[in-house]
């Protein structure tokens, strides 16, 4: 009897949760569906069944050269994340394993740089970029994104490294492991999952960054954020094409996001919620 009731309750919750979840997901779903329609179909009224044409995808490539901003996005987001990791790993490592009195202050200070509103430094950044020729270059955007994500990378790595027990290193040393063995066989396997989550989350953040990437780029280095933003001035019938471009822009990150959602909470709250 109790069991029957709880199954009924479970079915009730299932229906409610799925209904809400589908409503929240609907704009994304409808974008994917619309991308598979022809332009006249896309504005012909509500329909969840597309004709399945891929013409919008071809149109986005042939008319707007989609591939170029896509490559820019890949280079800028992956590049900035890798550089940030190379800079951050030693810092996070030393703060986690040989903390000093000032470690906490340094960490808080790093976080505070993240609070600076981008518009507060828009003017000088624009002028610096203009005068150094970095405006509208992939290198320039990579540098900016490295800097704005560096504090998060340090913090995330720090929260992961802190959980590696220091005693294990000592035990390995007592067992006669050389420094090389210690790093390769003991430390690396324990550090890799944390580094991987950090990598994933920061590629996502860099990919979606929509202030600097739009303002400091033009035709040449524009990543997908700027490319999609350029669709805001309508050019006739473009619903299906906009949907195709949007689907292509969010698909890779959506899939990465699904894989990293468990680490997301920790990464974005700087370890305050686990």
């Amino acid at each position, binding site marked *: 009897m109790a069991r029957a009731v*709880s199954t009924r309750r479970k079915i009730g*919750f*299932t229906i409610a*949760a*799925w209904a809400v*979840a*589908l409503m*929240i997901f609907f*704009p*994304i779903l*409808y*974008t994917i569906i*619309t991308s598979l329609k022809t332009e006249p179909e*896309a504005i012909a009224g*509500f329909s969840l069944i597309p004709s399945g044409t891929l013409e919008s995808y071809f149109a986005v490539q042939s008319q707007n050269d989609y591939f170029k901003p896509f490559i820019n996005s890949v280079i800028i987001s992956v590049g900035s994340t890798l550089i940030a990791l190379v*800079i951050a790993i*030693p810092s996070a*490592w*030393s*703060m986690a394993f*040989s903390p*000093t009195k000032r470690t*906490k202050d*340094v960490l*808080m200070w*790093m*976080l*505070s740089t993240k*609070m600076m*509103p981008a*518009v*507060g*430094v*828009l*003017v000088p*950044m*624009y002028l610096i970029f203009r005068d150094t020729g970095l405006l509208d270059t992939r290198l320039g955007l990579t540098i900016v994104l490295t*800097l704005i994500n560096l504090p998060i990378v340090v913090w995330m790595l720090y929260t992961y490294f802190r959980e590696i027990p220091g005693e294990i290193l000592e035990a390995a040393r007592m067992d006669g492991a050389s420094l090389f063995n210690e790093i390769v066989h003991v430390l690396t396997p324990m550090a890799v999952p944390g580094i991987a989550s950090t990598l994933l989350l920061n590629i996502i953040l860099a990919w*979606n960054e*929509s*202030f600097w990437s*739009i*303002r400091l780029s033009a035709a040449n280095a524009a990543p997908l*954020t*700027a490319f*999609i*933003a350029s*669709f*805001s001035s309508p050019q006739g019938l473009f*619903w299906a094409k*906009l*949907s195709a471009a949007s689907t292509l822009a969010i698909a890779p990150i959506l899939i*990465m*996001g*699904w894989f990293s*959602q468990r680490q997301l*909470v920790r990464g974005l*709250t700087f370890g*305050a*919620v686990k």
Partner: protein
Amino acid sequence: MATRQTRTLARFMMAPSVILLFIWMIVPLAMTLWFSFQNYNLLNPGNVSFAGLFNYKFFLTDPAFLQSIWNTLAIVIGVLVITVVGGVALAMLLDQPMFGQGIVRILVISPFFVMPPVAALVWKNMIMHPGYGVLADISKSVGLKPIDWFAHYPLISIVIIVAWQWLPFATLILLTALQSLDEEQKEAAEMDGANFANRFWYLTLPHLARAITVVILIQTIFLLGVYAEILVTTNGGPGYATTNLAFLIYRTALLGYDVGGASAGGVIAVILANIVAIFLMRAVGKNLDK
């Protein structure tokens, strides 16, 4: 325990990030501060002079400034209310036993991964468009006149779009916090005869207090700087109806070419953000001590 050698090594390892972040923090900010006291217009770059507090006076007395502060607050508070209330409700729903919980979670979290320009354009054109949007189709099917969202409710439209992007974030964090609530405590409360409202008010909500604080503070930092959503939907209009502080500074700087005025605005934005930041740092800092 740490020898002098390891301490030196530790400092050496810290140096690159500390130096880079220090430069990143100091140089542009110092330049903004400097420009904010100068008469400097990009259309007339040869004619730069000391302006005293003129730029601040100019920016603060601009009627658009008060409007932009109001719009900034409306966006921040509107989105916070929707995401926190909705997030608590949604997290509690997702915490219940159900079939396909993993997939539901993935569907709910997805909007967070959608880049702002895509989110804004999809909502503007495919959901809220008065002629071809889904909401218009629904209105027409029940015999109502479709609402022209961006013409009549521009600020509310922006709030809806931004709330859609942040609701998943709030939900995910609150769900994580909810899952750490002790099952036995819940059962004990139930056995003592506490009804749902009592359990929610005296057990769940206090347990979530910390997570809610973190959600509010982190979202505030990002919501103060909402930019791309405004750029691709209303471009700050009609008039200044959807211009927030970030967008006003952008307008002054890159559309008005007024380096001095925009810098003064930038300094004001930094001060406002810092007030929020102090509270966030306290909340995060507390956790670090544990």
